[in-house]
């Protein structure tokens, strides 16, 4: 009999610690599938963030280290510079990457570090139970914006892909979403392209993935998927923000 589906080798047999409807499980699986398909499991080193995904080493079946909050790109820089033939990626949430770790992400991008960044944007702090994130939308209610985020008091959400697209050292930036099957397939292609670019030594790639946090959004998993589609992706517009490789082809 022909196997049409199996669990990727890059995932361990482990009971999930993520909440029902959380996007991390989908994204972990996509990364694991890509790593399997590229045949790079034995030379991949992951850098986990602080936040819900800190436990990534429980799920990924390859080498993974933890890093301090926001510092994953600095840790990845140290690893990749010394082991340039290994595949190094960071997995970071919005608080980790776009608040406390803004300096690290901007400067690793500016240095054009040949790493892949998986940036999971769910517009809220998940692990600490629902405070305002740097990507929380205007009017969105969180435990620290109980009347809704008011840009006058709380500032505006940070658009990471738009921001990084101005940086010369960046090779590839794409914002994707996991709100539907077609978008999940697109997300996987984007992740794969980012890893391929690293294998081809093309430099810094970041994939921003709009993801769900139903528990802290106070929604059902289905409502959460719909919220990405109807609200979140209106503010964080999906698409390729930079692809140096494609640009070169056009010239």
């Amino acid at each position: 009999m022909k196997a049409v589906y199996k669990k990727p080798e890059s995932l361990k047999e482990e009971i999930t610690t993520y909440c029902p409807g959380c996007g991390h499980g989908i994204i972990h699986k996509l990364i694991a599938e890509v790593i399997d398909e590229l045949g790079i499991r034995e030379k991949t080193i992951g850098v986990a963030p602080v936040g819900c995904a800190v436990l990534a080493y429980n799920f990924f079946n390859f080498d993974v280290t933890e890093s301090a909050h926001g510092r994953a790109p600095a840790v990845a820089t140290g690893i990749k510079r010394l082991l340039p033939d290994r595949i190094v990626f960071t997995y970071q949430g919005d608080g980790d990457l776009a608040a406390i770790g803004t300096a690290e992400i901007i400067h690793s991008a500016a240095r054009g570090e040949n790493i892949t960044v998986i940036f999971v944007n769910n517009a809220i702090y998940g692990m600490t139970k629902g405070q305002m994130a740097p990507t929380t939308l205007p009017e969105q209610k969180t435990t620290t914006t109980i009347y809704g985020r008011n840009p006058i008091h709380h500032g505006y959400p940070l658009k990471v892909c738009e921001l990084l697209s101005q940086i010369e050292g960046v090779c590839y930036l794409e914002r994707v979403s996991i709100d539907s099957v077609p978008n999940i397939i697109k997300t996987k292609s984007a992740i794969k392209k980012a890893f391929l670019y690293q294998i081809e030594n093309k430099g810094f790639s970041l994939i921003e993935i709009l993801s769900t946090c139903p528990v802290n959004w106070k929604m059902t998993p289905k409502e959460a998927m719909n919220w990405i589609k109807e609200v979140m992706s209106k503010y964080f517009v999906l698409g390729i923000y930079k692809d140096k490789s494609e640009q070169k082809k056009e010239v």
Partner: protein
Amino acid sequence: MKKQLLTGCEAAGEAAIHAGCKFYAGYPITPQNRFPEYMSKRMPEEKGVFIQAESELSAINMVFGASVCGFRALTSSSSPGISLKQEGISYLAGCELPAVIINMNRGGPGLGDVTPSQSDYFQATRGGGHGDYRTIVYAPWDIQELYDLTYIAFDIADKYRNPVLILADGIIAQIMEPVKFKKPKKNLPQKKWALTGCKGRKPNSIKSLFLTPGILEKHNWKLYKKYRKIEEKEVKYEKYFCDDIESLIVSFGTCARICYESIKITRDKGFKIGLFRPITLWPFPYKQLEETIENAKKIYVVEMNLGQMIDDVKIANRKNLPIYFYGRPGGGVPTPEEIYNFIRKNESSI
């Protein structure tokens, strides 16, 4: 081998290279700017990596990354920058990762000034960052010793899988002295725990998060055992003129070197004074100091700070001898005459 005339920053850089260090990340801060400048030239020559980071936070986390994948790694800075690195040092200690951190101490608190100081003694010897941990701390008093201690610091860091600090100061960073080199280390042993890709083995993970109840407590007791072993095995100190003492000066680093000069004057004038110099500030040589003061009548503590080492001297001073403190905080550097005058005043007051 011929001696080389080098600044402290250069000598420590060479020591790291000779010890097999392949990675340096740093950020400019006076009085140790020569360090990143020098390493930016030397690391590429040695097929190592030099990175000027965007911050001290980033630099120490790059060192964390280098250490995670099994390489010997170094960062250097001065006091305000070392405060920023404390986050990373705590993570290194929690993850049991080796690394060497050099602090060319300047005056504080806050931005302070750029002149030499010993004001980071507490920070260096009591962990420095959050959590229950210790770092091994070496305090060199000249450039040769800075070289020698930096050279062994990498071995000690690897041996115990623990960060090692060198606590020097702005004088040691900038003065030039002749230095005799040691043999460059080659073919260092592989680290089985390192993350290098899981080819041919089970995946490795490095972490300091232990959420399951009781596991962190167990981990901390494991660290405790390691720290007790370090206390037992790694104490370093020197003593001078201590055979017939009535009084003992306790001082470390640059300040001890100045005290050494003042003791020559006091000895010429007939005072029976010796000098005890801890070289490891943690582990502190409590037992050795206790033995040294056995026949003494009083202790002088001389530091370029407000008396931070006195706490440790008191632990060793079970005889309860009177302790007299002479300090120059905020970047002040005493002269040998100044220390001599302080001692003469107190010696003749008995």
